């Protein structure tokens, strides 16, 4: 009992002392200190924080805040988006069947070589339009540049150099190249080019506005490459590092012509309908069979695995 009493008395004494030393208060006026100072102010109970907050009406608080004039965080702020590539390949090139199988010296081979790009009118118009915007465009140099872009892009993919890859490959092609590859190791090497690359097709398209021109050029290249993909644990998933494969590819390279800083970047590949089937992956994959009703049996001998239709598609 004596302790709390002393505490109250001490508090009063301190209060009066403070009053005396306060420079703001004039020396003549002396207000008496408070007689009843609360002493037992220590919190001795615990209330969990969730109890105090009852469900507030959410719309109610928003309206109140707006009425009071408090400005909340701005939602739906407009953000400009830069579209620097098209969504797909416009008017894709249909490669003739048996493109790589005929040699240049036979009659049919000569016929094929004769159907050069000069015959297709739309490609010529497109090339003329590209030369309007970029005067240094030449079909022969461009094909070699395209191959260089291809090689550099795939090297950047093996190192997974994001910035370099974005500058060499359009935004449409980037997720196709990198999907699922983040936690895998890819080893790719370009051994040699079997035929000089050729420009085969060209198109110019407008996106959104009339003058916003994008140029797409298809380049045909025949080369030898090795590819080996290892999964997260270092086990081989696909291909082999020593065995090279001959590859005939049709690359689509795109550039935003109107933009002075636009660059020719890899936009996609065209896979013809007559392309040979790729090598299977090393592991076995389960394909789900038909759904059986109770009582039916699964006929393993007559069941055929559905194969995809042989259609040209572009990656």
């Amino acid at each position, binding site marked *: 009992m004596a302790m709390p009493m002393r505490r109250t008395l001490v508090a009063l004494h301190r209060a009066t002392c403070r009053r005396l030393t306060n420079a703001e208060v004039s020396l003549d006026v002396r207000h008496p200190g408070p007689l009843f100072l609360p002493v037992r102010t220590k919190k001795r109970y*615990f209330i*969990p924080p969730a*109890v105090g907050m009852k469900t507030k009406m959410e719309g109610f608080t928003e309206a109140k805040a707006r009425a009071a004039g408090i400005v909340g965080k701005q939602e739906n702020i407009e953000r400009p988006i830069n579209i620097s590539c098209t969504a797909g390949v416009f008017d894709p090139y249909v490669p003739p069947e048996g493109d790589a199988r005929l040699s240049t010296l036979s009659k049919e081979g000569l016929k094929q070589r004769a159907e050069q790009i000069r015959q297709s009118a739309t490609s010529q118009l497109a090339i003329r339009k590209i030369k309007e915007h970029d005067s240094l465009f030449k079909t022969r140099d461009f094909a070699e540049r395209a191959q260089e872009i291809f090689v550099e892009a795939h090297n950047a993919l093996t190192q997974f150099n994001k910035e370099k890859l974005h500058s060499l490959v359009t935004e449409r092609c980037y997720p196709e190249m990198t999907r699922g590859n983040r936690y895998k190791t890819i080893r790719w090497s370009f051994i040699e080019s079997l035929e000089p690359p050729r420009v085969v097709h060209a198109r110019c398209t407008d996106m959104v506005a009339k003058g916003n021109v994008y140029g797409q050029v298809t380049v045909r290249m025949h080369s030898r490459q090795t590819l080996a993909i290892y999964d997260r*644990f*270092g*086990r081989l998933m696909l291909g082999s590092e020593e065995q090279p494969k001959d590859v005939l590819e049709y690359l689509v390279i795109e550039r935003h012509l109107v933009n002075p800083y636009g660059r020719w970047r890899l936009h996609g590949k065209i896979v013809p309908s007559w392309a040979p089937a790729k090598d299977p992956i090393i592991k076995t994959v389960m394909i789900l069979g038909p759904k059986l009703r109770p009582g039916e049996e699964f006929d393993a001998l007559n069941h055929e695995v559905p194969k995809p239709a042989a259609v040209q598609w572009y990656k």
Partner: protein
Amino acid sequence: SLESKAWEKKNLKVYPPQLPDEPRRPAEIHHSRRQIKYSKDKMWYLAKMIQGLSIDEAIAQLEFNDKKGAKIMKEVLLEAQEKAVKNHNVEYKSNLYVAESYSGKGRYLKRIRYHGRGMFGIMDKVYCHYFVKLVEGSPPKTVEKTSFDQAKQYVQNLKSRTIIHSL
């Protein structure tokens, strides 16, 4: 701490490609479920029950267990099996076994429990996390030591003692 997601980060580790003469590294899949409305002590019994079993056996045991946590644990195991086949290049979905499985405390909600005479208690609304590590391959066989073996070992230890500074 209760908010750390270290278990999920273990799935992001990439090993360098193996040389052809090295033994094949078994795939490891880490999976977890957070904030399950169940007690961590009750979950622990189930977690230790399936530790060391193959995944098919574990799923079978949990399917016919009457506890609430068993149903949730079975869902987690099936999710982990699917992820293993889809994302982590596991060939056969039955070729997995449960290497590690344990439960941990989640973040609790606190409420007041009213007693008589104005007294109160703080009631914890209990949550738990559940962690599973699946490894590719058949489960390791633990050699069971019989009591006779242990006794023989004890006698052997006694016999192999050397007495120093003796004649």
